[in-house]
């Protein structure tokens, strides 16, 4: 059986085509990813973009729509996926996907482009406690990206630069607009770029950590979402959370789409 999970993020659409396998006694081999596909919708309307992303994923997997038993959608724009049988919140989908990758993981931190959130999960991958920040985008990737642009660096270079700094420069502003002006004044005062990068990523990590602390840090910590690719942020988050290790899945931006496809499969039984 094949199911699809579509994660309608604010910047990109992620599609997972999942095949349910029958391997007795090996639950981790219960599913295989047939295709992982990402599309940047650009100026397209979300409903048109969802159709296009899904068709592209099917075509590259050599499948047709009728080969897929159920399509579920998640993410902020999930209601725009008109062909999805059900919409699932990002908390439920992310917790499920993270639990599949790391069955011992109980604290899941999801940091995408526009939103960050913390979740506590049970052994089945059900979110039992979650907190986000409905007001502030400074605890998410797009803020770090905007700041990296101000320093004329890619987000990757920004993360690597931050790792070269051992300075702690607190950023007091809670709002992206004011934080941006703090960064501008650091640039004007000739603060080394590495230190500015670390200050920004520390600030994002501290905001994310505040959400995670609301639900409590317990067991193995798993980070999902695009910010996993930013080594500087991962280091800042470890420090802010006071943990030695954070589990980082492969293809972290697909974890919510994966969880969504898994839930779609489970609900067919």
């Amino acid at each position: 059986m094949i199911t699809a999970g579509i994660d309608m993020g604010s910047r990109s659409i992620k599609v997972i085509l999942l095949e349910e396998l029958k391997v007795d006694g090996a639950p981790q081999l219960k599913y295989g990813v047939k295709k992982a596909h990402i599309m940047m919708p650009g100026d397209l309307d979300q409903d048109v973009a969802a159709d296009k992303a899904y068709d592209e994923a099917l075509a590259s997997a050599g499948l047709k729509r009728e080969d897929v038993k159920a399509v579920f959608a998640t993410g902020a724009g999930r209601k725009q996926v008109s062909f999805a049988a059900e919409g699932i919140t990002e908390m439920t989908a992310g917790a499920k996907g993270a639990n599949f990758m790391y069955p011992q993981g109980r604290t899941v931190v999801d940091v995408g482009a526009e939103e960050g959130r913390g979740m506590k999960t049970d052994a089945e991958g059900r979110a039992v406690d979650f907190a986000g920040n409905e007001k502030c985008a400074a605890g998410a990737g797009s803020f770090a990206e905007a700041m990296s642009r101000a320093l004329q660096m890619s987000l990757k270079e920004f993360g690597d630069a931050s790792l070269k700094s051992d300075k702690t420069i607190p950023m007091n502003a809670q709002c992206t607009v004011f934080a941006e002006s703090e960064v501008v004044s650091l640039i004007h005062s000739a603060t080394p770029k590495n230190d500015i990068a670390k200050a920004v990523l520390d600030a994002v990590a501290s905001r994310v950590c505040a959400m995670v602390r609301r639900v409590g840090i317990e067991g193995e910590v798993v980070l999902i979402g695009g910010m996993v690719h930013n080594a500087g942020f991962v280091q800042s988050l470890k420090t802010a959370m006071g943990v030695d290790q954070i589990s980082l899945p492969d293809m972290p931006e697909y974890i919510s789409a994966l969880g969504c496809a898994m839930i779609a499969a489970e609900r067919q039984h």
Partner: protein
Amino acid sequence: MIANYGYKDGSGEYYISIDTDKCIGCAAERACLTACPKQMFEIITDDYDDEVAWIKKPNCRTLSYDCADCKPSGGYTSLPCMTACTPGAIKHSW
């Protein structure tokens, strides 16, 4: 599930948490809906097909202002939402 709705900003941490397990078959006949003068609560069907309360999206960004009338600066002893929700599902972080 404990669902925390709200935000942290420069002035503090403002979250309302709802223990949604207590909303399933609510023993208070959904009293939160009428008790809140700002009508911030709403019943939704969650991902597990259970009918539970949540805070309406726009209010999640303005909680400190929305709840100000119920929380005078001189202090308060009870809140309408928490008093009405006899199962004890609602908590405020501030």
